[in-house]
């Protein structure tokens, strides 16, 4: 198993750092899947995480100048590592003005992802800072847990309101209740509701627009078109999970969508230029 990569462009480095920082705010540990074309940060929706799932996909060519991978075997040419994204984020931040950054898989006292950055200095020789992040290599037999989640058969799909506004609303609601109901319809309307014994608060968003999932799953499109666009579909989630998702966002996505499966799951999709992030929050009764 071998992995060597290099980033030279500062813009790419900063962009990559921001993605990793966003991931680090969403979860304490996650799995990094490396394939010849892509990198994936994966959190599988097991009960241990509270059922929250995450899938973040980056195209390696958009970030790295060099990317060499020799996976576990010829047929399974990929590497799966479990790590703490916070370590990676911190390491990348110290290299924010580096001339080059190399990321490679090494074996020190344990398998490590080593970040080596060459920092500019006033003198002729450069400074090299090395960070060794301990990782766990995930054996091939467990890879099934970390494959791309399939798009759930959603009842409603809607564009989200500006994340900042949503975050402000959810922050305030968190003080009042532990659970929040998200409901939306195919008419571009979304409501965030909380209800307690003493108080109920609803925030209404209108004219959000609905993504056209045309040309996709025929049956889905069919089911949606049959449903009355005014009908609200809802799911009740733990407000802290939603808040954690909104807090972590480091930069504005070009598209942000929310798919809701009635009383089952919320599927949030953020699309940036070179990165896509999907986040699944299960509904509670």
């Amino acid at each position, binding site marked *: 198993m071998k992995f060597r990569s290099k980033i030279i462009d500062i813009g790419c480095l900063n962009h990559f750092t921001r993605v990793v920082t966003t991931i680090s705010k969403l979860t304490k540990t996650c799995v990094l899947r490396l394939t010849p074309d892509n990198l994936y940060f994966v959190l599988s929706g097991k009960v241990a995480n509270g059922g929250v799932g995450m899938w973040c996909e980056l195209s390696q060519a958009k970030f790295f100048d060099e990317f060499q991978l020799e996976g576990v075997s010829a047929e399974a040419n990929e590497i799966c590592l479990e790590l703490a994204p916070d370590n990676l984020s911190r390491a990348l931040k110290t290299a924010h003005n580096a001339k080059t950054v190399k990321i490679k898989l090494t074996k*020190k006292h344990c398998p490590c992802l080593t970040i080596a950055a060459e920092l500019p200095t006033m003198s002729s020789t450069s*400074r090299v*800072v090395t*960070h060794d992040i301990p990782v766990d290599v995930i054996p091939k037999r467990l890879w099934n847990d970390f494959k791309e989640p399939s798009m759930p058969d959603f009842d409603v799909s809607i564009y989200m309101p500006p994340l900042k506004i949503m975050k402000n609303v959810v922050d305030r609601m968190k003080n009042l209740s532990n659970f929040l109901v998200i409901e939306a319809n195919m008419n571009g309307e979304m409501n965030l509701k909380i209800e307690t014994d003493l108080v109920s608060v609803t925030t209404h968003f209108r004219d959000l627009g609905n993504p056209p999932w045309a040309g996709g799953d025929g049956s889905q499109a069919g089911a949606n078109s049959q449903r009355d666009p005014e009908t609200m579909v809802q799911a009740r989630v733990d407000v802290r999970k939603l808040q954690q998702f909104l807090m972590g966002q480091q930069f504005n996505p070009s598209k942000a969508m929310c798919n809701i499966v009635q009383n089952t799951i919320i599927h949030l999709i953020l699309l940036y230029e070179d990165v896509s992030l999907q986040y699944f929050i299960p509904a509670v009764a």
Partner: protein
Amino acid sequence: MDCVVTGGNVKVLAKAIHSLSRIGDELYLEPQEDGLTLRTVNSSRSAYACFLFAPLFFSRYVNPEGHGFRCKMAIKSVQAVFRSLATLEKTVEKCHIELDADRNRLTFTLHCKHGLLKTHNLSFQDSESLQALFDKDSSTNVLKAQPRVLADTVLNFPPSLDEVTVTVSDERVWFRNHVDQEAEPSKAMLTELCLSSDEFDHFEVRARSSVTFCLKELRGLLVFAESTGLPVSMYFDKPGSPVVLSVTDSVLDGNFVLATLSDESGVQTSDRAGTPAPPADDFMNDELESYLIAMDTSMAAGPSVPAPPAPLAPGRVGSPTATPDPWSPAHSEPGEDLTEEEEEPGRPPNKKFRSLFFGSVYPPGSPLGGHTPSSQKVLASDSEEDG
């Protein structure tokens, strides 16, 4: 005591106090002929910091009480006087520090723009003299760098990091985060920064060595160095010997003396109150109090000077060197016949580390009551007999 600090020096004084506050909770103030010293030490006595401001630093420096006056006060109270550094710079024209002997108060008066006067009356306690014994000039390795270099280096480490290991070879220096052996070694992230000798103003390495000390205390000094732009010098020898960080200019001299981890097996002398069990800490504090009280009351009599180095050399067990160096007590095993030991029988070995710096109480008339900016000499035992 009566002195006045004007203009930009007020900020320098304020910064010095702020950086001392990163080390200890109490500020020991001692005006002497050669200047005003501000000192502090941390609770586990493994870090000591001292700033000496020469009379020229002040626009007026008068010391009518002579050597007699020494006090200590809560550092937070003094910090409160110099609280907002940005406004200090803009509004304070001068700062007048005066001892009000009648009411036992030290008065800090800030003369600000537009005729505004801010007066702070701080109470103080009489104290013994706090003085560490160290000799920079005999250090094996000396590095000197602009504060920016060290500040950038330290930025690579997380703010929560306790200890950093500095390793030198002929041409390079490595800064590494120190991972406590007791913690899970495989889970910690390791960071290492390598600097070459040409980044330093002065790079003198006579012996390869690797020392580990507390990063937080280094950051305290860097805050001061960066704001004054003074280069920082680092003097060190081998593990277990303290590292001295200093900044100097013509009117001030700042020294931070930090204990380093000894690499002898079993002697865990880190400044994290080394002993594993909390009760030992309380015990340590109790001992310390009684030690200080003993010092106080014996001021007049002049206790025998602790740590006369030369006689100890032959008798020491487990010490790697036989040279009379002042901080060798750290290597000694308990039961060694040290003068300090006599005053505090039964002290467990790790405490010896913290007392490493502590010089005696010098009675007022002693010629060694102060120290000069030019040299920090180890006191040989014979000259102390009159003490």
